[in-house]
């Protein structure tokens, strides 16, 4: 994050974001491990289901942590995040629907995960852009 983003965080926001990040990392590790182990058939089916269930639960806790972060966030920081979420969601819809038409015109088939990647990248990029737009002013000290 930029310095503009950093100073948008109050100490409480930093703590809440750390909690969100911890859940996200745990969910990502579980997701990656489950994908590798299930695809490679390294584990029995029951263990695969257990890892999958754990990944889903961890992702749900990640969402809960993010909502908690948003609800308690500094109001300008919350605006930055909500604007970024709106843009990411919109771009995801545009990519999904727009590319469906492109596929009909002969473009390669899109993987179901591709719009998700677009949404995540736009979400991250938009946070930086909106943080610069609303904040970014130097301290008068």
């Amino acid at each position, binding site marked *: 994050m930029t310095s503009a983003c950093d100073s*948008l965080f*109050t100490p409480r926001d930093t703590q809440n974001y750390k909690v969100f990040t911890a859940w996200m990392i745990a969910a990502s590790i579980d997701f990656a491990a489950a994908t590798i182990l299930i695809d490679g058939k390294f584990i029995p089916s029951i263990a695969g289901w257990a890892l999958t269930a754990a990944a889903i639960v961890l992702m749900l806790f990640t969402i809960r942590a993010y909502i908690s972060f948003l609800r308690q966030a*500094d*109001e300008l*920081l919350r*605006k930055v995040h909500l604007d970024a979420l709106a843009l990411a969601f919109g771009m995801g819809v545009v990519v999904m629907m727009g590319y469906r038409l492109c596929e009909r015109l002969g473009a390669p088939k899109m993987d179901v995960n591709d719009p998700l990647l677009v949404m995540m990248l736009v979400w991250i990029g938009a946070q930086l852009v909106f943080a610069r737009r*609303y904040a970014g*002013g130097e*301290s008068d*000290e």
Partner: protein
Amino acid sequence: MNNRLRVLRAEHRWSQADLAERLGVSRQTVNAIETGKYDPSLPLAFAIAKTFSLAIEEIFHPNGEASTKV
């Protein structure tokens, strides 16, 4: 919306960080309000008014309108 936040803060000799701490927001939020990039929520506007012991309309006013109190 225009505001007199920077002037009022200067009168109290507070830095943006000082005011932000009093209001429980980030310094960037104070900066964004002062520069007109962001209009505060009603609860925050009330908190600002209370901090300076003024009415909201004495601090904030619509674009193009002078403050009700100088």
